């Protein structure tokens, strides 16, 4: 109980303190507050992972009823992720925001929104009262909106922010719909009432309820086709906010889905099929569009959609396991999903922070203009490389571990499955493999074009590595990425509790994971060490041999041409050209080009703007139709005050007269009937 009170007191104190401090202290106070709250909530969260649960009951008010807080292993797992990402994100933001030091009041709002968002996320993972849950959800959505529009003087930023605001309110509408339905049926706001209700009613009912919640949470998480806000909001936000958004804010959608799976009793097999299909589609669509992007942050944003898809595949497998009463399958699916949630939070925030470093150095995110940064920013480049390999799911980093667990689950479920699920599962495997291959394609492009080769346009003269203090949070994340990659069995132990909770195993006498998976984790750990050893050995031998050989430095082979300009290099556009031709029918790219022609050729140019086909059909077209419909009534809004007063009078007359007319109408109908 004390913990909750201290948590709220720290939050309130910080909110009131921050506006009155100078810029430097705003940051320090904010970070200290988050550190204190991290310690409080992290402490509880770690205890939940070894099997304890915590329950608090707040009295609440007449409108909410008693507020029940319940902290179990699932909340604990997400609380730890939120804490880590916000701590490193805040630390990184502290250095990153130095460039905006003169915007004092703007920074105050930013700091307040930052801690509000943090607290809202933490409370979302523990609240068991639907009314308060929605309030916290709204606080989270609004504060995230404020965080995104930090550079509100830019038109694109404010547009992206409003797009996000609208879509997150559509998400709230769906959540409200579900909660109101349940509150109406059960007369209570408590989550346990929903659980009891769905257990005692038929499963079609709860399936609809689940889908309602799923859509609400899926908009937040960015499942296709509810994703279109995400690629706008991420690039618009400052880099530490992009990292946090991608790392945890969209993950609260995943948390919501998992929580609802625990609460709602329904036919899990069908839910599993549904999630599997939508996730496979999200994963593929996300990465397919990511490849085309020229804006580095937008590329990363589409990769968030892809990774949400991978997490979803894990959840889908877990649900199929629950539906078939197959504990092994359920535990592997959910463990993969949970671990990938953590992994994605790590490598994606690292990618965004490294991108932030690049942005600070060159002030552009268009990858076609970049190149050769590895020589000027070697540490940022190395960090970007590590996270890029990790996000492709390649060993020896963490992405491989979670994808491996999901793969194991998928292959495990091939053994005893019905025809429908077999075909779904083989296509999920296919999807996961293609996602992996496309991710490799995308990140070799991103890393290769941004950091390697020579610069492709005139960049600022002095590009230098960011100060070391700004790199510290990045290194912290890297350590964790390596730890998960090298000691996966350690993290599997941490996953025992939350997975057991989801897979529905209450007794923790034995491990929820099959022995073969545990052994596989240990073997992977050994293999990783062996790999590092082999690579080091080969490298040392190579260097020893090379010491005795003549080593020269000359220009790159240019087919006999000795003075190639940097414009001759491959660009991102040319790297993906074959791909975009291949998938031309699925993708949508707007091109503008002017060919060079004539005897005395003038300058030509070529532009391409990748666009989202789903967004075009699902968002743009309906809005256009709606606008044209509403346009028909434009004559009503003519700007003349007299006419507006007339509308008012007409309105009043109508409100008074309609009931009267109605009554008369009835009399008339009665009269007709008597005839």
């Amino acid at each position: 109980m004390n913990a909750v009170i201290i948590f709220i007191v720290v939050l309130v104190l910080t909110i009131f303190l921050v506006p009155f401090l100078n810029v430097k202290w705003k940051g320090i106070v904010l970070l200290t507050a988050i550190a204190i709250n991290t310690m409080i909530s992290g402490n509880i969260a770690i205890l939940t992972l070894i099997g304890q649960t915590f329950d608090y009951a707040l009295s609440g008010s007449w409108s909410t009823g008693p507020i029940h807080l319940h902290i179990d292993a699932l909340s604990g797992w997400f609380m730890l992720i939120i804490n880590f990402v916000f701590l490193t994100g805040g630390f990184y933001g502290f250095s990153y925001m130095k460039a905006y030091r003169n915007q004092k009041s703007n920074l105050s709002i930013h700091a307040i929104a930052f801690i509000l968002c943090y607290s809202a996320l933490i409370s979302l993972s523990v609240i068991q009262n639907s009314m308060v849950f929605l309030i916290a959800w709204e606080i989270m959505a609004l504060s995230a909106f404020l965080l995104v529009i930090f550079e509100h003087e830019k038109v694109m930023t404010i547009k992206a922010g409003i797009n996000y605001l609208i879509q997150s309110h559509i998400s709230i509408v769906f959540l409200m719909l579900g909660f109101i339905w349940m509150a109406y049926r059960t007369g209570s706001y408590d989550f346990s009432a929903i659980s009891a209700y769905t257990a005692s009613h038929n499963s079609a009912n709860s399936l609809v309820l689940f889908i309602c919640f799923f859509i609400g949470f899926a908009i937040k998480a960015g499942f296709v086709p509810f994703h279109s806000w995400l690629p706008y909001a991420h690039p618009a936000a400052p880099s530490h906010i992009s990292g946090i958004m991608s790392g945890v804010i969209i993950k609260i959608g995943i948390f919501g889905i998992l929580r609802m799976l625990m609460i709602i009793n329904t036919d899990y097999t069908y839910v599993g099929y549904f999630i599997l299909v939508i996730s496979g589609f999200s994963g593929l669509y996300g990465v397919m569009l990511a490849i085309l992007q020229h804006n580095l942050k937008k590329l990363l944003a589409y990769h968030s959609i892809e990774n949400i898809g991978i997490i979803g595949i894990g959840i889908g497998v877990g649900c199929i396991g629950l539906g078939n009463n197959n504990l092994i399958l359920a535990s592997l699916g959910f463990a993969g999903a949970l671990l990938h949630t953590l992994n994605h939070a790590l490598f994606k925030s690292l990618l965004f922070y490294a991108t932030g470093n690049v942005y600070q150095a060159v002030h552009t995110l268009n990858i076609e203009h970049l190149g050769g940064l590895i020589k000027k920013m070697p540490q940022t480049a190395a960090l970007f490389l590590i996270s890029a390999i990790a996000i492709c799911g390649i060993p020896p980093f963490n992405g491989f571990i979670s994808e491996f667990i999901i793969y194991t689950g998928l292959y495990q479920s091939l053994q005893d499955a019905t025809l429908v699920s077999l075909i779904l599962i083989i296509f999920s495997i296919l999807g996961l493999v293609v996602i992996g291959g496309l991710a490799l394609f995308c990140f070799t492009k991103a890393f290769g074009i941004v950091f390697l080769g020579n610069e492709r346009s005139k960049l600022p003269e002095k590009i230098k590595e960011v100060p070391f203090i700004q790199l510290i949070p990045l290194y912290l994340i890297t350590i964790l990425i390596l730890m998960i990659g090298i000691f996966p069995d350690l993290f599997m132990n941490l996953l025992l509790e939350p997975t057991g909770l989801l897979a529905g195993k209450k007794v923790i006498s034995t491990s929820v994971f099959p022995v073969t998976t545990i052994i596989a984790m240990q073997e992977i750990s050994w293999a990783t060490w062996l790999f590092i050893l082999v690579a080091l050995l080969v490298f040392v031998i190579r260097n020893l041999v090379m010491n005795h050989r003549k080593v020269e430095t000359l220009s790159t082979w240019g087919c006999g041409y000795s003075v190639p300009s940097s414009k001759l290099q491959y660009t991102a556009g040319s790297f993906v050209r074959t791909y975009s031709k291949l998938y031309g029918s699925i993708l949508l790219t707007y091109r503008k080009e002017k060919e060079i022609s004539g005897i005395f050729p003038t300058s030509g140019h070529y532009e391409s703007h990748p666009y989202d086909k789903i967004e075009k059909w699902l968002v743009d077209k309906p809005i256009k139709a709606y606008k044209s419909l509403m346009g028909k009534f434009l004559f009503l809004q003519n700007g003349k005050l007299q006419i507006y007063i007339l509308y008012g009078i007409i309105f009043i007359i109508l409100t008074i007269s309609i009931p009267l007319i109605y009554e008369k109408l009835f009399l008339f109908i009665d009269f007709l009937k008597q005839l």
Partner: protein
Amino acid sequence: MLSVILIILAGIFFTGIVIRTKSIASGRKGPGLLQPIKDVIRLFKKGSVYSETTSFIFQIAPTIYFSSIIMAMLVVPFGQSKGLISFNGDFIFFAYVLALGKFFSIISALDTGSSFEGMGASREALYSMFAEPAFFILMGSLAILTGFSSFQEIFSALHLGSYVSYAIATLATFVLLMVAMVENSRMPIDDPKTHLELTMVHEVMILDNSGFDLGLILTAGYLKFAIFGALIFNLFVGMVSYQYAIPLFFAIEAFMAVLVGLIESFMARFRMSHNAQFIVALTSVALLIFFGVLLVSGKFL
């Protein structure tokens, strides 16, 4: 451990046999079987030239590429004897560790800033992406058929009983062979002997590598082919005792090398734009195997 030694031995001769076959098919005498290895040893003795555009990525990439092949080699079993690394789902590790090598070879090509190498990198990234699904579906089908999910268990439990399973084995060999061709950048996807940068895929990526690094890359290539040969061998010879299995292994590897040589002698490389279609067709064949397996295991009813 046995598989490692045998694969290395097979790797020494494999490329030599391919080159010799091609020479004989085109009416020449051709170099000795050990010529590729002699080339590598010569490269190890040479100095290097590095491009001034390159960074440390270019220095470490050949090492990591080579090590990834070594790791993949350790996973492959030999008959009933396990690979050094063997666990449930080890074929996933196999594919992904190969991907690590690929990642580094692609970015090291981009590191030179050459447009040729960028082109090769783009093609390599795209083509290998299409080959992997076929491999995973094949392994999935075999996992259903046998009920296991590690290389060694799958191969040793694989019994070729009915006619359908012969068909499956034939198709599986085809898929594995083609995956090997794609992974090793051979005909019909890529022509290692082409001499125009514009038409190369793998060769153009290593244009700027020289000396020891080039030697590592070439050695890795020889081993990679032998690794896939070993996989095909395992498909047929699960539980045969060693005195038959070892000669059989070399026979299959040699047969495969001759086959590759013959394909490269009598076939032209596909047009670049047809490559993608071809590789997608490979996935379809793999799906065919999958449905065949469903038929055999009675899941269709």
